[in-house]
């Protein structure tokens, strides 16, 4: 291992990463509002838009057939 990389024991490394994120989230002020907006937006995108507003795209076989029909009929 190169001299400039400090050896960190694995359990210690995981707990340091855990504390890093835990403290970071705990100390957020504006970030809390932003995370609420992100969560709401993702819910709208993946639930309202994807499931309710947009019809399911055709599966692969249908896509190919549909394109074939369009390509060969529209001449």
């Amino acid at each position: 291992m190169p001299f400039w990389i400090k050896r960190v024991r694995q359990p210690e490394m995981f707990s340091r990463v855990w504390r890093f994120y835990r403290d970071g989230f705990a100390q957020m002020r504006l970030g809390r509002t932003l995370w609420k907006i992100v969560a709401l937006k993702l819910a709208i995108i993946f639930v309202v838009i994807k499931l309710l507003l947009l019809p399911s795209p055709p599966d692969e076989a249908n896509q190919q057939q549909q394109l074939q029909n369009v390509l060969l009929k529209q001449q």
Partner: protein
Amino acid sequence: MYETLASVDWARLQFAVTALYHFLFVPLTLGLSFIVAIMETLYVRSGDEKWKRITRFWMTLFAINFAIGVATGIIMEFEFGTNWSNYSWFVGDIFGAPLAVEGILAFFMESTFFAVMFFGWDKVGKGFHLLSTWLVAVGSNLSALWILVANGWMQYPTGMAFNPDLFRYEMASFWDVVLSPVAVAKFLHTTGAGYVTSALFVMGISAWFLLKKRDVVLAKRSMVVAASFGLIVSLYVVLSGDESAHQVAQKQPAKLAAMEGIYEGEKRAGIVGFGLLRPDKQIGDKTSPFYLDITIPYALSLLGYHDINAFVPGIDDLVYGNAEKGIRPAQERLDSGKIAVGALADYKAARKSGDAATATAALDTFNAHVGDFGYGYLEKPEQIIPPVTPLFYSFHMMAGLGFWFLLLFTVTLYLLMVNDITRHTLWLRAALLSWPLGFVASELGWVVAEVGRQPWAVQDMLPVHIAMTDISGSSVMITVFAFAAIFTLLLIAEVRIMLKQIKIGIEGGH
């Protein structure tokens, strides 16, 4: 029944609304990330706590924009599947690869270092924190690279081969796609425009602080960074714009002719600096396209072809052909395209019936005409020309704004250097009022790129009405309004949160 016009127009409008809203968030992410990285570098090098407060203030605004804008592009990927499934099948093998790389870079590289950038103050070393800030900036811009590679491929398809059994284009060379000159020019110019937009944003808000006489020292320092960065990147945008125009001249002559309102081609063609188009002008009618125009002589030949004597084809040349200049009439390409389409149908039928000899002959015919394949789906030659009016005005407004920004950055930097900018309230007001114009110019550039590619989804290969799913216009129409409402709410949220944060001020703590 295949609903062509109404549904395709709604699908295009839906994609345009989604892309234009998405592109309000993107330029600020691209440029502000670098501006914040520069500010933090100044903090680390000088150890001056003022630079740290400045960095944290702009980093907070960056976070607001990032949080509100993140994932808004996903909706466009949904639309590829639902509204543009023919397109997705036809070219998905090529188009999908850069988008997948973008997803991996955006979600892993950016988000990893984003956490260090925001949670890491006082928890990691200064050097590692600075590295994380720079990596967020580089990661954001690398994400943009892949999106623009995909878009560049739509403007100039290369590195692919048609598979007649699957009815789709497949990637033949990844590097031809990635290193396409159009993709490279597009990346440099679009990201550069984002940097300019961000510099204007920082300069405008700093001007507001100076006009209010709040946080004066910190606002002045922010303005120095924004004006210096803005001046350098403005020059870079002019150069990359020149390369973009050069590529358009070579690869999309109809787009260039429409951008400049040129109907009759000419040698030593000039650039229209200012022009008022005649709305009644028709292709081939030999009347002047302008009520009035101010033209810079020779400039278009020089910039478009790097040769002052070069011939620049006009709309009439491209539609009706110009034998002297070796330009084929569009009708010839339409006829050739129909032969390709017929040959493909013959190939399919021969394969189905097991007639190998006929299949081979049909495939040979198809391959001989494959370059005109997309033209087989057009009805008349005039369709190859994109709409001139929106393209001409969008391009000229974008270019005009670009030169205003260059002047704005230059004069602001000069006034900052002589240290009396606070006395020039009129100029500070101009800087304040100019910050939204960066977004306007970016959006106009996108309009030029996308409207200028019409009637094609993929240049010369796939017209938009063929690219679309067989779906009713009414179902697309409902979602257009739903998307517009959602994006408007997001935009209102962003503006409100940003204004609140700006009012707290640079010294206010973040």
